[in-house]
Every structure is written in structure tokens, then in C-alpha cells.
């Protein structure tokens, strides 16, 4: 990792802080590994497992934004393609929905991912010559296209979805025994995270960041900018397709409703709430989203017409607004500031310098101006 990771490790001489960092990481690791022993079934399934696969969907967006300067609204459509492709070819227990070709689950996974990556490459090729708001609109259009396609071509989507999509045997019943699926999602999350961290320091990844900063300059240095962006988009599609497979296993079904515009916005919100400056933000945002989802439905008071337990969208909207206004870098930004206070790194913890490395901020602001419609940048300017 270039910007974000380098600076802290190099400019943090205090041993105590590094030690604390490793301790926190170890604690999180232990909790995640022992989660089935710590949390009840509901928490394990509805909060943690859901947060993990939603995080994978969101990190595909975080990656494209953070390293490619692309705010894609097509990630949900792509994971839907993977889910539907898999759902159609594998055996479904009641054969009402989809083609029900009776393939084995693992063959279905491979097919779903391959189809999603190929279409992702096609989508990327279509969108790769556009920037900022135009890129956003093209990916939104593609997203709606996929949603309506599956909504109307009922041969492929069943009436109201493909139900009881068969899973690999080891997963068992994710409702009564959520642990296998939980560990699957955890393993996939770690693998995706490591893959993306690795990719951004390969020649491909460094050039992608160059293209994020100045596509015209990269073109004059000899790079095929559109091809590069399309390939990056395909990598994002690969990550999203993994989330698609996991979401089908998690829900045991897939329907056009699960890839609608609300879900598209939800993944965008998750990425922004978590913080776009670091890949980890996607999972943090997804956890926050799952928690707000659950607790808002449980504990929201009824205030006449204004508020009631059904108003999850209102609550998440307000939270989104607050986070965007208070910390443009999401929960990661808040975390970085707290961390700076704890480790006394930014002694005064000025609001301008606290969040991540200044360089990461400068990058984000640049990217923020490119990707109109992405998170509003605060107008702070690093010299």
C-alpha cells in the first residue's frame, strides 16, 4: 500500500502505539475467529455474516473509488448477475424459478463468477472512457438495466426469484447452523482484502493509481487508460461476484428485488459510512449498517407521522448525513482521529490533519472532485 499504510509505519516511532495497534488487531482477530462461541445465532448470522458479505460488495466499490477514481453504482448489479447466473444453473429444490440445470453448487459458483467478470469487463469497457458524474450515470444505467432485465425475463429470474438454490453440502442449513457460512464469509473477506492490498502495489495497481490522479498524463506516458480502467472494473466485478455468491447462500434465494436501486444505494452508503480512504472501511461500514438496520427496527420510537420502527431508511439517511458532514472520511476517519488522540500522534489533533495521512486526503479530495456525486469533500486543502 502506498499512501495510507506507508506513512503511519514510517512516522510512528512510538513503540507503544505500534504495540497497541497489534493488540487491537489481535483482539479483533480473536473475536472474529471465536465469534460462533461468543455471539448467539441471530447475531452471528444476521449481523456478522451479513456484514461480511455486504463488506465484500462494498469493498469492490471502495477499491474502484480509492485506487481507480471510479464511483461505480453497478456493483450490486454485478453481484446480482453472479447470483442469478449461479442460481440458474445449479439444482434448485423446487424447480419453479430459473433454468434449474442441475449443476453442482461449485460448478455454479465458477459459472456465476465467470459470467459476472465477463459482463463486468463489458460494462467496464462501456464506462471506461467516462469520468466523474458521467461514469456514475453510466454505471447507474447499467445497474437499472440489469435490475429490469431480471425483473422482466422471468425465465431467468422465476416469478419473484429463484428459491432454495442448492449450496455446497458443508454449509448445511445457514439458518440453524450459521457457523460454516460465517467462516466462509470471513475467509472470503480476508482473501479479498489481501488480494486487493496485493494488487495495488503491482505494476497494474500503481498504474491504476496514476490513472486515478491524472488519466491524460498517463496516456501521454504511454498507458492505455481506457483498457486499464476496464480491467480494474473487471477486478472489481470479480470481488463483487464473490459477494453475489455469498448473498445467495446467505438468503438461500435471489430475486430481482434483492438487486434493486435501494440495494445499490445501500452498498454506496456502506462504503461511504465506513470510509473510502481504506479498504477496511467497507467492512466497518457494513457492520454499522447491519447494526443500524437491526436496532432501528427494534428500538425506534413512534413519533406520530415522523418516526416509527419501519423507518429504517430515514434513520440510515440521517446517520449517513451526519457522518458525511462530521467526518467526510467516514468511520475510518473518526477512528483515525481517536487513534491519533490515544497515541498522542497528532498532539493537538487538529481536525485538518488528523484523518489518515495528509497525502491520502489530498488524493481523496482530488478523486472527490473527479467523482462528482461521491462523498462531498470538505474543502480542506492540503498545501
Amino acid at each position: 500500500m502506498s499512501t495510507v499504510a506507508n506513512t503511519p509505519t514510517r512516522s510512528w516511532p512510538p513503540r507503544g502505539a505500534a504495540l497497541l495497534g497489534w493488540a487491537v488487531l489481535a483482539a479483533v482477530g480473536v473475536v472474529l475467529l471465536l465469534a460462533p462461541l461468543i455471539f448467539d445465532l441471530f447475531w452471528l448470522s444476521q449481523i456478522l455474516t451479513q456484514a461480511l458479505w455486504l463488506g465484500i460488495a462494498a469493498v469492490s466499490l471502495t477499491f474502484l473509488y480509492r485506487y481507480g477514481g471510479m464511483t461505480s453504482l453497478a456493483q450490486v448489479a454485478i453481484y446480482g448477475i453472479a447470483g442469478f447466473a449461479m442460481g440458474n444453473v445449479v439444482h434448485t429444490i423446487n424447480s419453479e424459478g430459473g433454468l434449474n440445470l442441475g449443476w453442482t453448487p461449485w460448478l455454479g459458483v465458477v459459472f456465476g463468477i465467470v459470467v459476472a467478470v465477463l459482463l463486468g469487463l463489458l460494462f467496464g469497457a462501456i464506462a471506461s472512457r467516462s469520468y466523474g458524474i458521467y461514469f456514475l450515470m453510466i454505471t447507474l444505467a447499467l445497474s437499472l438495466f440489469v435490475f429490469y432485465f431480471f425483473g422482466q425475463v422471468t425465465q431467468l429470474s422465476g416469478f419473484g426469484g429463484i428459491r432454495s438454490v442448492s449450496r455446497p453440502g458443508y454449509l448445511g442449513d445457514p439458518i440453524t447452523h450459521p457457523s460454516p457460512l460465517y467462516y466462509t464469509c470471513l475467509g472470503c473477506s480476508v482473501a479479498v482484502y489481501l488480494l486487493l492490498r496485493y494488487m495495488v502495489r503491482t505494476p497494474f495497481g500503481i498504474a491504476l493509481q496514476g490513472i486515478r490522479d491524472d488519466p491524460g498524463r498517463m496516456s501521454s506516458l504511454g498507458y492505455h487508460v481506457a483498457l486499464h480502467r476496464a480491467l480494474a472494473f473487471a477486478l472489481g466485478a470479480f470481488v463483487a461476484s464473490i459477494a453475489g455468491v455469498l448473498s445467495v447462500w446467505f438468503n438461500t434465494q435471489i430475486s430481482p428485488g434483492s438487486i434493486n436501486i435501494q440495494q445499490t444505494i445501500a452498498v454506496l452508503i456502506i462504503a461511504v459510512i465506513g470510509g473510502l480512504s481504506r479498504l477496511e472501511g467497507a467492512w466497518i461500514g457494513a457492520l454499522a449498517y447491519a447494526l443500524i438496520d437491526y436496532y432501528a427496527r427494534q428500538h425506534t420510537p413512534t413519533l406520530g407521522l415522523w418516526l416509527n420502527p419501519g423507518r429504517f431508511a430515514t434513520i440510515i439517511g440521517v446517520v449517513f448525513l451526519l457522518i458525511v458532514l462530521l467526518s467526510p472520511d467516514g468511520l475510518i476517519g473518526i477512528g483515525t482521529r481517536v487513534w491519533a488522540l490515544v497515541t498522542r500522534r497528532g498532539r493537538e489533533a487538529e481536525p485538518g490533519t488528523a484523518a489518515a495521512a495528509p497525502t491520502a486526503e489530498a488524493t481523496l479530495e482530488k478523486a472527490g472532485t473527479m467523482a462528482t456525486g461521491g462523498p462531498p469533500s470538505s474543502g480542506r486543502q492540503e498545501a
Partner: protein
Amino acid sequence: MAVAAQSAESAEPILRLRGVGRRFGGLRAVDGVDLQIRRGDRRAILGPNGAGKTTLFNVIAGEFPPTDGTIDLFGTDVTHSPARHRAKMGLARTYQQSRVLLGLSVEDNIYLAALGVRTGHTFPFRSRKRDAPLRARAREAAREVGLERRVGAMVSELSHGERRQLSIGMARVAQPQLMMLDEPAAGLSRAERVTLTELLLALPEDVTLLLIEHDMDVALRVANWVTMMHDGRVIVEGTPAEIRANETVHELYLGKRHYGD
């Protein structure tokens, strides 16, 4: 030195523009420009603001195609080929505003400039074997432009002058045959200009230099041939001494005639 560089005149020009024009709507930014650059030339393009110098640069580098005329680069017609092809053929350029990659380190910037003219842009693995020579070249280029202490720094932290140095380092590391610099001295202090001039004078003799420069001292010291542009056209060409003495040039830059100098 200037004479030595001129000696290759029998050779075929490495850049030849024939009747090149570029219109933006009704504006003729560049109009009927003929230009021949030979290997080893040190050519400065002068002219007041709005003369079409940068547009001419953009057309030569392939930012956008000309609306009229043809461009031959190293003997090949590149009129409609994209910028990246010209970069790989051996053309490197800098920009009026240093366009450097703000989210990456100095070394990564130069590394990308070195990688750009090679293959393997989309290589998805880390390979020390592949990268070590390029990284070494990048650090070497950083040293050549005086940024050896800043190789690890993020480009967003560099000063204006350092970004200019970096731009030139990025152009050099690609080992271009033709280097195009758009106002490299703009915004530099006097000391930085001296450094820049020395840097340009120290370029290998077979590197061809095409230079836009407002600073007459830099331009006329580095160049051995000067092309003067005005309103999109070439109006005068000559040696620095001729240009210095030329009446039209004085008129354009100073706005009035100096009779009886």
C-alpha cells in the same frame, strides 16, 4: 555545442509538420504550421500568450488530432495515432502546469514514466526481477534532477519547483528521442532557473529538445534554433542571435518599435 548539435542536418527530420492547423470552433489556435526538427536539435518555440504554442504541443504529442495537415514522427505518419503510441515511439513531454501524480510517491511517479514506454502495464504480480531495474532507474533519474532526498516523499508534499524537477525526471527516465518541455521555467526562482538551464544543457546530444519558454534567458541559452509564433502562425525562425535582434520579436514582446537601436 550549438554548432555540433546542428551537424546532423543531412539526416531526415525526426519531426515534420506539414500545414498543421487546429481549430476550436471559430478560433484557429494553430494555423498552417510547417515545422522540421532534426535529431539533436534544441528548438525553442517563442511567442506571446495565445500564440498557439501549447496547442501545437498538444497536437504534436497526440492530446488531440490536428484539424488540418499531417504530422510525421520518426518517419511515420502519426497524425491520428493516440498519445500513448507516440510516447512508446520515443516522445516525452511535460506540461505547463506540472502534471504529476499527486497520490503517489516521487519514485512511483518516475517508475510509472519508465514503465509507460515498456510493456507489462497490466502485469498483476509483484516481481522483484521485473521491477528492480526500473526502480533503480527511477531512483537514478530522481538523483539526476536533484530529488534524491525526496524519492520516498508523496508528490502532493513537493514544492512547485520540486514538481518541475520531477516532471523533467519523468521525461528523462523514458529515454526519449524527442523531449518536449512546456514552459519548464515558469514560476521558478532565479536559482532554480539556473539549475534548470544546466540540467537542459547537460542532456545527451542525441536527445532532441522542443521547448516552449517565456523566459528568454533560458530559451536563448538552451536553444540553437528559435521558432517564433503569433496568432497560431510561425512568423520568424532563426538562431537565438537573430531572434534577439529581430524587430518583430521586440514588437510582439514589448508592444512598440525601437527604431535606431
